[in-house]
């Protein structure tokens, strides 16, 4: 018997170092006093202060948050309905087109999705701005929401819905009283996933945004192209912190739910 403990531990350490070292360095250097991002010159929070004073950056962050909150809501509703159609309605005509339309954007290069949406908005004569980003993001993230909700629906015992109908609940009542409560954790996950994907998107937003609707990734991107700056490090660290906290909260909520169950 070979002892695999040492190689396994080495692999885990090396793997996680590769995954987390760049992020860690980024956060560490956001507290660097020097403007030179690669030379440590003592601890400082000056870049965080500078960041909050940067009105454009704050405005973009707000745009991003609004877009994300709205588009994720649309995506969750649409994705839930789509998941239902795929999981519960059996076969219907043009189902394969529907399935293709639902799943293709997951793997499709973002450039193509962004480009095609831009052409649509131009052809329809719709002015680009906040709402076009919302629509584009809702389209992208709806696919992911569908996947998440569908996975939960697939393991949800169909006889629960039948039992509700058997006990006199109509289709709407069954959905509201049985399906929705049981689906709630998946809906929350779907919304969170959609929210994060929207907050993260650069490419699609670049295609469909207009003047005055610059999202945070677009703003960061335009600065990053000019080189590494401590202010961006600070911005990134803040975003990482928010996501980290959200993940911790989600994990804790999951544990808590399992305990009360």
């Amino acid at each position, binding site marked *: 018997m*070979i002892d695999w403990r040492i190689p*396994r531990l080495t*692999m*885990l350490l090396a*793997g*996680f170092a*590769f*995954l987390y070292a*760049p992020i860690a*360095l*980024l956060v560490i*250097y956001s507290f660097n006093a020097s403007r030179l991002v*690669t030379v440590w010159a003592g601890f400082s929070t000056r870049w965080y202060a500078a960041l909050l004073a940067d009105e454009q950056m704050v405005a973009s962050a707000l745009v991003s948050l609004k877009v994300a909150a709205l588009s994720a809501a649309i995506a969750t509703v*649409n994705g839930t*309905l*789509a998941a239902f*159609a795929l999981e*519960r*309605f*059996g076969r*219907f005509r043009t189902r394969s087109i529907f399935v293709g*339309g639902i799943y*293709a*954007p997951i*793997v*499709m*290069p*973002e*450039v*193509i*999705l962004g*480009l*095609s*949406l*831009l*052409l*649509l908005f131009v*052809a*329809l004569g719709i002015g680009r701005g906040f709402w076009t980003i919302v*629509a584009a993001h*809702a*389209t992208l993230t*709806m696919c992911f929401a*569908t996947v998440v909700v569908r996975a939960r629906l697939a393991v949800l015992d169909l006889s629960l819905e039948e039992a509700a109908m058997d006990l006199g609940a109509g289709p709407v009542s069954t959905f509201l009283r049985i399906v929705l409560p049981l689906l709630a954790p998946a809906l929350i996950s779907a919304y969170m996933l959609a929210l*994060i994907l929207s*907050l*993260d998107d*650069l490419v699609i937003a670049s295609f469909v945004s207009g003047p005055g609707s610059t999202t945070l990734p677009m703003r*960061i*991107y335009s600065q*990053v*192209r000019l*080189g*590494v700056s401590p202010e*961006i490090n600070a911005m*990134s660290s803040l*975003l*990482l912190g928010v*996501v980290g906290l959200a*993940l911790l909260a989600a994990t804790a909520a999951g544990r808590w739910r399992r305990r009360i169950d």
Partner: protein
Amino acid sequence: MRKGRLSTGARLALGAPYLWIALFFLAPLALVLKISLSMSVIAQPPYEPAFAFGAGLAEWVAQAQKFSTESYRGLLDDPLYLQSCLTSLAIAGVSTLIALLVAYPLALAIVRSSPRLRPLLIGLAVAPFWTSFLIRVYAWIAILKEEGLLNHALLALGLVDEPLAIFATNTAVVIGIVYSYLPFVILPIYNSLERQDASLREAAADLGASELQTFWTVTLPLSAPGVVAGALLMFIPAVGEFVIPDLLGGSDTIMIGRTMWNDFFENRDWPTASAGAIALLALLVGPIVWFERRQMREAVR
């Protein structure tokens, strides 16, 4: 309940996502196809509108005569597109291969850890996916730059005499892609490994197979679906990647996503960019269809 026709309620429920997909996904794709087949005329909008929305059928047919495959011929003649296409495939392919070589042992190490640690470890491996893609790519700039952290460290340790020129090369792009897409590859491999019944390995050992033989004859073949899924999940979007080559690559790292972006925003040559998009899509649809078929076959079995 399993019928060909749907009830009214079901129709209503299906209607919203269906319309959304039709309007914001299928219609735009049709439009891209349309524009890729129209003349390239520098104008605003930068394509000759081959037909107006809501135009009559007759006009549609008349316009159809003016369809042109010029953009596609241009695509083939333009060495830039062909070159960037090949570069994209090569970079995505190499990156996927490296990612598999990193992800598989890592996934295996996680699966073989104690059951209590497993959820935490796989959670940690996938967590970076939730953080901003842009930020994760950006983090590598500071590391790989000529006066960056990696070179600082290497010089300080005396491992190299002069800074390595990694930044702004294809190598940097490959590193960036592997890093960004690693969670996508780890997760399906982990899932397929985790589903494997531990008694299979015990049975193999009981029948006299060494640990290495067991791995090659039992563990690896059974995890093949996970490996294929992970590879496709990474390869396809990596081919069209724009952010990573733009930030980490050099001026000679011309990937197809970037070429299309440039054609669109800088050259304002929409028909050519559209033709590029359609060509890329056609190139990528093949593996997806193949994968779907494969999964269907597996589901049947």
